[in-house]
């Protein structure tokens, strides 16, 4: 392929595409897709892959079979997933595959032509796409995840890859690109929802010897992993989008700032950059135009605040990641003082398709003010966890009940948390609201990066608020006082309440403090950190009240507020008394035992060890 370097043109791009497609569509051709995202790998996909390859290696005369590692298809609970794709035949999806099953699949299905139905989902011979989970989804950002080999640029090209860039640099002026982006109405998926075209139009006119495009792949919201999935499953889309952005604002250099905790993503990005350079899709005079652009990777070192633009810039400069006042905005003075545009991974993943298919195409999804789709990481107490991409405007109820199939074990829904540590909880009464940037803010939460954690009756909302504050206290960069000190004080009060030492006045204290921190913090971290407290205070005031007045935790989570008791049907097996780490349980063999409440540390050991269900907590 290296020889193509000198002369990569739109025609060569199209001929690569035609070749790959011709190969894939050849009669008898079999593509075996193995889900090799972090989720797949942790479920054992590497061993499965090795087993498949070993079987194939035995048959040296077989030439029509390709084993292809691909990204995550979104239904991580079924990993390891292996799919078999043959032209003109129904796709076959195997789930929970083990190396042994893999060998059997190779023998019976690949070499024998007979699908092993018992290893498909519930043995029903249905594909992923036929699951309820996918019925209301619309795949734009995730269109290639789980479909192509992320380590093979030709597969990306086969799905119209780099044609958006070609169109931009060969047919459009930079202003035209920005105009298309503005018309598309794409809003930043990193949390803020700022229109991408407008952001680019701020950076474009600023004159400088050097400008930068930065891809924000710091994905800090714990509980969100869509950016990881895109980077692992479709890294070239990000490179292409960054190059388009570079062309639009006049930048020749890009950085991807990615979490070091995502080693698979980092490695695939490195491979992708290398391949794009080889083919002349990065580097000097891209596709024969006058436009030159190259990309480097910088690894984050584990600081949530570095997701914030100005802190991120400081970090790339090699400093402590502390945010600073805006203005000046990065579009004017960013990395090393030069005009800089920062875009989120998911935002970028939309861009090549918008340029190629036009703004109207993109506006065909979603709502007027929030066009397009949004990827959510559906997690917590929900039957189907995973990544879902839905058109904006869908209701939360549809996502939780139709796609996620509701709450497990017949428990009651309590709240759904969006926006991570900057967001809030949404309750039953608001589940019918169409999801978009503005609606979520109106009900006291926010879109954030797309974490969507469902909670049931067993989750204590005071404890959840404390959990998020624990996070922000840890992650505050320490530069401004309201955030550094204020979040600590908030956390102390919450700690006190969950420890059973809260007082009724604490609730007002929380609210006042929260409002103050919001109003006076320097950057987005502090300005949004109190949101989890305010929103739980608003929607679950009763629960706070129970903690401070009755000293009870209704969800039975906060240990110091619990009481453990042995019921009269205790058989006196003595197990609990032997297992109790503080020897708080006494009683004769075959007699009802008693817990000394003074000594009890509420560790719950007795409850877990009792074989007769004779111990209750309340």
């Amino acid at each position, binding site marked *: 392929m290296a020889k193509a370097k000198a002369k990569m043109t739109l025609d060569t791009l199209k001929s690569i595409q035609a070749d790959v497609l011709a190969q894939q569509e050849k009669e008898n051709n079999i593509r075996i897709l193995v889900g090799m995202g*972090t*989720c797949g*790998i*942790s*479920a054992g996909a590497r061993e499965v892959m090795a087993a498949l390859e070993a079987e194939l290696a035995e048959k040296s005369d077989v030439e029509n079979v390709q084993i292809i590692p691909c990204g995550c298809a979104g*239904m*991580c*609970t079924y990993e390891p997933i292996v799919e078999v794709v043959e032209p003109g035949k129904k796709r076959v999806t195997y789930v929970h595959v083990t190396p042994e099953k893999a060998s059997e699949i190779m023998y019976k299905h690949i070499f024998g032509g007979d699908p092993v139905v018992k290893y498909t989902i519930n043995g029903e011979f249905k594909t992923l796409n036929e699951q309820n989970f996918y019925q209301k989804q619309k795949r734009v950002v995730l269109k290639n995840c789980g479909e192509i080999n992320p380590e093979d640029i030709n597969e990306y090209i086969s799905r119209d890859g780099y044609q958006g860039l070609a169109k931009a640099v060969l047919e459009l002026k930079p202003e035209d690109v920005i105009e298309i982006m503005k018309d598309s109405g794409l809003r930043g998926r990193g949390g803020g929802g700022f229109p991408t075209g407008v952001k680019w139009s701020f950076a474009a006119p600023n004159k400088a010897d050097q400008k930068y495009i930065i891809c924000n792949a710091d*994905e*800090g*919201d*714990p*509980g*969100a*992993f869509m950016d*990881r999935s895109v980077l692992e499953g479709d890294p070239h889309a990000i490179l292409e989008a960054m190059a388009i952005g570079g062309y639009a604002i006049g930048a020749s250099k890009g950085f991807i700032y990615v979490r*070091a*905790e*995502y*080693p698979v993503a980092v490695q695939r990005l490195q491979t992708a950059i290398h391949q794009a350079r080889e083919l002349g899709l990065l580097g000097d005079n891209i596709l024969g135009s006058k436009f030159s652009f190259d990309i480097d990777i*910088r*690894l984050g*070192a*584990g*600081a*949530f605040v570095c997701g914030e633009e100005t802190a991120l810039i400081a*970090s*790339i*400069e*090699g*400093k*402590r*990641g502390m945010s600073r006042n805006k203005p000046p905005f990065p579009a004017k003075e960013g990395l*090393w003082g030069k005009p800089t545009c920062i875009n989120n991974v998911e935002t970028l993943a939309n861009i090549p398709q918008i340029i190629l298919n036009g703004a109207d195409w993109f506006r065909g999804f979603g709502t007027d003010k929030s066009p397009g789709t949004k990827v959510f*990481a559906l*997690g*917590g*107490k929900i039957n189907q*966890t*995973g*990544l879902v991409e839905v058109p904006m405007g869908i209701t939360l109820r549809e996502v939780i009940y139709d796609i996620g199939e509701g709450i497990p074990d017949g428990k009651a829904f309590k709240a759904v*948390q969006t926006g*991570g540590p900057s967001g809030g909880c949404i309750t039953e009464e608001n589940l019918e609201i169409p999801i978009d940037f503005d609606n979520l803010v109106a009900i006291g939460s926010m879109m954030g990066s797309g*974490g969507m*954690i469902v*909670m049931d009756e067993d*989750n204590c909302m005071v404890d*959840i608020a404390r*959990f*998020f504050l624990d*996070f922000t206290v840890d992650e505050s*960069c320490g530069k401004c006082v309201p955030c550094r000190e204020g979040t600590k004080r908030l956390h102390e009060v919450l700690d006190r309440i969950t420890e059973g030492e809260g007082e009724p006045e604490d609730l007002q204290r929380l609210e006042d403090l929260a409002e103050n921190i919001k109003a006076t913090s320097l950057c987005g971290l502090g300005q949004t950190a109190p949101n989890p407290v305010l929103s739980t205070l608003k929607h679950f005031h009763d629960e706070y009240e129970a903690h401070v007045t009755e000293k009870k935790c209704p969800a039975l989570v906060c240990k110091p507020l619990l009481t453990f008791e042995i019921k009269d049907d205790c058989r006196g097996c003595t197990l609990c008394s032997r297992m109790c780490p503080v020897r708080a349980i006494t009683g004769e063999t075959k007699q009802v035992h008693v817990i000394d409440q003074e000594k009890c540390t509420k560790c719950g050991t007795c409850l877990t060890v009792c074989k007769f269900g004779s111990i209750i907590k309340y």
Partner: protein
Amino acid sequence: MANECNNRNESCIRPDDPRYKELKAYIDSVRDQQGINIMVLQEAQRLFGYVPLEVQKWISLELDDVSVGELYGISTFYSQFNLTKQGKHKISVCLGTACYVKGAQAIVEALQQHLDIEVGGISEDEMFSLEATRCLGCCSLAPVMMIDDDVYAKLYDTKQIPEILDKYYLESELEHEMESEVDA
């Protein structure tokens, strides 16, 4: 310098440690780029397993215009960096939201009890260090923990934990046996 090596005596990194050579080669390869402090510390940590002050001093001498203070500031700001020696195996329990609501705290407590260590600490026999991290990106498999590069998913039942750890003890015993056989 002796008093700076107080983290478990035998682990001091000697000035003639060959890994310094590798680090120097890395520094030379990136020297002409801007803003390399974090990258160099990351490479140092990859090589040594942690970045004690003595290594930071060495780096500061190697890089022009970078004070130890600056490096120390960076290494204490970012949670990725360890200033003290780590256990042979690193356990990271995810305390991200998805894992937390599914009971990850119980995993931490079970590990603390079982290994008798604190979060951020290292076990007496130096086999394990325990860390709480935020979201490993496997939220669908929550609650999860990672030991080195292996992910253990859906740990609803903390009774599995001793079993998982035993695997590492066993491995280490086998290694010892092999070594002593080679010695003999």
